[in-house]
């Protein structure tokens, strides 16, 4: 029997941008893109961590304009398709058109899991330009499978050719992933994808659960380079999928080498589950809040985990990085007041 094909989309150069505090250089992008292309990765996503146009005070400024990254990758890639991420509200149709002009042919349009209707213009424009379009429903742990399906159907109706269950907080467990993927599979005509974070140490388990339930697209980042505790490591994902009898088209030695020789040497910190990133998964908080929380915690002398747990309670969503400093300052003021009273 022919092995079922799974499309692995590598996001080292997009979700990894969070872990790099958006400081990728064009030279680094070129070397990563070349290695991934050579390893047989068919689609690679390149953008600021918060998508096109994300370079800002709120999310961190990129070391170089995204156009430089895309140009650098386009120059070296022979077979793979280039993809971008775009979050309506942050990036605009103008960014999308500019990316198309640089050779990008896959547009991933992301919204919070309840707000799919803000993606219509962007999905339609990308389709009109002839791009392949993926809908990305972030923070999917926050809503029930049926509601997630309603939102996925909206994206499908605008023209998305695949819709992702995105566990931005790394908070989902395999059973939940299965329920959500199977609900989407049952209700959509288009394929379903899975994007996992490793905050609870479950990125591979969740990816496999999703594939078993029929997800045809899975995201990875080499060495797991990504927000929070990182993403599903592409090299591990490709290995596990091959062992399980799926066809990814990825050369295992080459992807392992790309991880070990190209990506690992440029990583500013090891990609591990530490107490703060574990707390992201525990509290259900957007993974890219991690480094911003460390900075705010240091500035205001409060415990990072307290900030994260409180952000979770207040149901803060992706993109609300500005809330972190606000909350840290509020907690510091409360600490001061408590000290004075004691």
């Amino acid at each position, binding site marked *: 029997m022919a092995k079922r094909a799974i499309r692995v989309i590598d996001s080292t150069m997009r979700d990894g941008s969070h872990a790099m505090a958006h400081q990728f250089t064009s030279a680094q992008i070129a070397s990563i893109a070349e290695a991934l292309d050579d390893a047989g990765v068919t689609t690679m996503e390149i953008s600021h961590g918060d998508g096109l146009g994300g370079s*800002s*005070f*709120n999310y961190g400024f990129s070391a170089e304009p995204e156009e430089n990254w895309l140009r650098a990758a386009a120059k070296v890639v022979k077979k793979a398709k280039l993809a971008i991420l775009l979050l*309506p*509200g*942050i990036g*605009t*149709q*103008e960014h999308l058109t500019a990316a198309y002009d640089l050779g990008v042919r896959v547009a991933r349009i992301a919204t*919070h899991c*309840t*707000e799919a*209707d*803000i993606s*219509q*213009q962007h999905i339609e424009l990308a389709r009109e330009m002839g791009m392949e379009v993926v809908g990305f429903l972030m923070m999917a742990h926050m809503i029930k499978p049926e509601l997630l399906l309603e939102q996925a159907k909206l994206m499908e109706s605008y023209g998305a050719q695949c819709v992702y269950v995105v566990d931005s907080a790394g908070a989902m467990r395999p059973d939940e992933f299965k329920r959500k993927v199977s609900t989407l599979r049952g209700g959509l005509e288009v394929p379903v994808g899975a994007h996992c974070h490793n905050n609870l140490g479950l990125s591979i388990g969740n990816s496999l659960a999703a594939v078993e339930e029929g997800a045809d697209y899975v995201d990875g980042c080499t060495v797991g380079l990504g927000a929070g505790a990182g993403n599903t490591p592409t090299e591990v994902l490709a290995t596990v999928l091959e062992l399980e009898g799926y066809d990814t088209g990825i050369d295992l030695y080459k992807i392992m080498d790309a991880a070990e020789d190209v990506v690992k040497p440029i990583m500013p910190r090891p990609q591990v589950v530490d107490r703060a990133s574990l707390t992201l998964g525990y509290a259900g908080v957007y993974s890219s809040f991690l480094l911003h929380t460390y900075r705010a915690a240091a*500035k205001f002398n409060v415990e990072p985990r307290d900030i994260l747990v409180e952000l979770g309670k*207040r*149901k*803060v*969503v992706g*993109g*609300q990085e*500005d*809330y972190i*400093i*606000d909350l840290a*300052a*509020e907690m510091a*003021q409360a600490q001061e007041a408590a000290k004075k009273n004691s």
Partner: protein
Amino acid sequence: MADKVKCAILGSGNIGTDLMLKLQDSELLDLTFVVGIDPNSEGLALAKQLGLETSHEGFDGYVKQHELADIVFEATSAKVHMANAPRLKELGKTAIDLTPAAVGPYVVPYVNIGDVLDEPNVNLITCGGQATIPMVNAVSKVTRVPYAEIVATIASKSAGPGTRQNIDEFTSTTSEAIVRIGGAEQGKAIMILNPAEPPIMMRDTVYCQVEEMDQEAILASIHETAERVRTYVPGYRLRIDPVFYDDRVVITLEVEGAGMFLPKYSGNLDIMTAAAKAVGEEFARHRLGLPTGAGVGTEVSRG
């Protein structure tokens, strides 16, 4: 009672209806006429109850009785206002535009209203713009601001289909106005929708990169500006003391609506109707030959 200037509202949806209620106690504007397109709309029913003239025939309905109003608040959609704007101009009306059409120059009460009082058409930018541009301006009055960025987070429930389908309009219009009206050299705007229940209040963060970090002067200007904005949007407040670090000032704001027709959490809509009223009253003072300039943002406009 002093003379008032007669005005009409085009659009009997949420925004038009909230504005209708806000104008009831105005000492400068006499709301006479509300125009919609749905004879069964709640807004038109309410207008009738208040004894106002109504029409459900859209712009044609207004034209039939245009002598009822000299100032027209446009609370329809960008597309509709684009079509109406030239006709309003022909009729010699002053249009105060709450849609993203931006036919006329941008206006933020207190910041630049003195510059636009002879314009036939002014535009209220966006909700995020009304909330944050006063703060960008507060900082840029003290020191050069090479770059300013704002993040507006609003409750999902308070974002209507118009906003949702045209989210790029929000970011591009607001960014432009941060520069033109706020006084920053470059601007960026971000909008986030949060679906939490109960719905969150509108929250805004303003980041200004500054050339000279004169904390005392910047703080004084911020607090003075917040006080001025509160004269027409009482629920406008700083969430925490502004934070200074590196070369930037971070100002976090919350806008609680007045809770007249719209729920209190939709401060984003409230600040639009409150600003529209403040702008309309300043135009009225101008027409009536009353002192302007100091007007908006002082006790007078409390209405």
